[in-house]
């Protein structure tokens, strides 16, 4: 029985971007995003840079305070802008963790690996004494394929793949239930990426973890996720089962995203034709009216400019926000 671990409703995250009083401008990094994640599943989030996928992940953990919306974790409301609920996050930090994108920037260069992993253990008082603390650190390092030798080294002594493992060990140190994986493999070499992806899968099986897996590489996301959400300019445009999404996508943006990925098979690559989108992503400071994708969409008409498309369930479990999805083949 799938049970919803996380529910996000109408989440908004606006960042101030200059101007005063009435002229105050905002970047709507995340605008009215709703989704849920079942316990034990992986939800993938894809989109181009600047579409708000990282911000969604961080806002979900309240690393950024949401502008509006509601976040429910395990049937407990941790944020609700209408009822003005703001839960104390400390107990939740034990359950919700994050692995950051850049393993070079997210580890303090002046701390040893043992201290990086141990910091979380100290904050949450998970070890009664020094011996226990040390054992726990070593246990975490083993889980991610490192060993006790590595504990007293500094981050600069590790390769990119190993650093990312340290980042994962740090997240695992508090025995979380849910981990936001924010582009955890995009800074790694191709041959190392597969190692880390496999490790995420193994850890999930072993500890029953739930992931929000954020990446721009759709093929990796499809590989690891049960369901995938596609974002464009702060909006979710489509969300479905990962197989369903890659085979029977409904939104024109998803379609073009899939066709834009170069296939590592020369015969298929030669025979298939790409849908090449015109133009660039519009500035989030000055987004188009109505449907955000309409400036690049080959099917856009007046209605797309006037109305924001509704987020609706087109088929069971397949959500899409597009006026014309049923007419596009």
């Amino acid at each position: 029985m799938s049970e919803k671990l996380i529910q996000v409703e109408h989440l908004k995250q606006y960042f101030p971007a200059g101007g005063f009083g009435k002229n105050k401008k905002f970047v709507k990094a995340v605008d009215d995003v709703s989704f849920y994640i079942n316990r034990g599943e992986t939800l993938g989030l894809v989109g181009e840079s600047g579409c708000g996928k990282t911000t969604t992940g961080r806002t979900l953990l309240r690393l950024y305070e949401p502008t509006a919306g509601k976040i429910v974790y395990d049937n407990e409301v941790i944020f609700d802008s209408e009822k003005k609920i703001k839960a104390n996050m400390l107990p939740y930090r034990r359950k919700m963790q994050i692995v950051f994108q850049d393993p070079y920037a997210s580890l303090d260069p002046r701390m040893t690996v043992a201290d990086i992993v141990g910091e979380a253990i100290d904050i949450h008082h998970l070890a009664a004494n020094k011996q226990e603390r040390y054992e726990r650190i070593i246990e975490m390092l083993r889980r991610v394929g490192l060993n006790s030798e590595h504990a007293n080294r500094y981050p600069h002594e590790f390769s990119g793949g190993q650093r990312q493992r340290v980042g994962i060990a740090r997240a695992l140190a508090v025995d979380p239930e849910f981990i936001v994986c924010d582009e955890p493999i995009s800074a790694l070499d191709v041959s190392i990426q597969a190692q880390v992806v496999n490790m995420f899968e193994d850890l999930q099986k072993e500890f029953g973890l739930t992931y929000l897996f954020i990446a721009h590489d759709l093929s990796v996301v499809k590989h690891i996720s049960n369901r995938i959400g596609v974002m464009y300019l702060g909006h979710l445009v489509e969300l479905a089962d990962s197989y369903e999404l890659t085979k029977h996508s409904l939104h024109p943006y998803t379609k073009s995203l899939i066709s834009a990925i170069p296939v590592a098979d020369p015969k298929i690559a030669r025979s298939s034709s790409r849908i090449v989108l015109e133009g660039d992503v519009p500035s989030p400071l000055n987004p188009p009216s109505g449907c955000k994708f309409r400036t690049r969409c080959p099917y856009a008409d007046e209605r797309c400019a006037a109305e924001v498309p509704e987020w609706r369930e087109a088929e069971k479990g397949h959500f899409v926000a597009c006026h014309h999805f049923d007419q596009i083949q």
Partner: protein
Amino acid sequence: MAEYLVDIKNERLSFFTPAGEVKALNDVSIHLSEGEVLGIVGESGSGKSVTAYSLMGLTAHPGKLIGGTLEFNGHYINDMTEKDMRKIRGNEVSLIFQDPMTSLNPVYTIGNQIEEVILLHTDKNKKQAHERAKELLELVGINEPEKRLKQYPHELSGGMRQRVMIAIALACEPKLLIADEPTTALDVTIQAQILELMMELKDKLGMAIIMITHDLGIVASMCEKIAVMYAGKIVEYGTTDEIFYEPKHEYTKGLLKSIPRLDAEEHERLVPIEGTPVDMLNPPKGCPFAPRCDSCMKICLREMPPVTEFGDTHYTQCWLNQKAQFEGGKVQ
């Protein structure tokens, strides 16, 4: 008249760092005919960029060419002076860098930067250069070229900047274009635009392209031949079909297996290449891939394998293949 446009033979290049000698390139041979597209794939530090840069005489200190011959379009790069090199660079061979954000000069307008190349290499005057710059921007698909020429790089998006870089590279209609991870910093939909543009321009202008990338998807769709590099060596070389459908080297096989496929019908576990890339300061004695290779034999750790050839276009450096051929009675 030389047979090939590019002919690199047994190139050896080392970086003499305070920590010791790093053999960045070890016996690398590449040749390329006019109008051909060659892909060089490999992980970071495998020597793909160094190979291409050395062809332009752009080896950075403390790097030094210590062996082999480089020939390009009838020039012997080894013997050329810096002054002569300058005449070729940007004229007969040009380069597109990975990061369009940092490879354009922020304090000059787009127009300045395009015209600079034209004024340097042709006898066009300023006005003609301006006209040519406008043509070039149109060629790479930028609207309102007159307006764009007056803008600075920060006013353009990443995709646009990369188009400007391409315009600069093509200003003198080079015979060879080296593209060093031209789309790594770009989003997928923009990447598709840029790749499409490069192929279009190649057909129009007939130049040869060396495409440096780590993305096997890009080489599959663009290249005719592929060189797979690992630790400063070309471990396998062949046509695109040979590399993808009949890979011979364990590293190539591993790379192909380790990438997830978007069109996979069901969930298959990825097969990663275990271990970490080679420490170039202390490379293994034999085959550099041996410590990570599943089928590693004793001899692999001791000696570098010789080249095993399969037909005219396909070769690899691997003892396993040497063994197979020996058993098949082809090699003595």
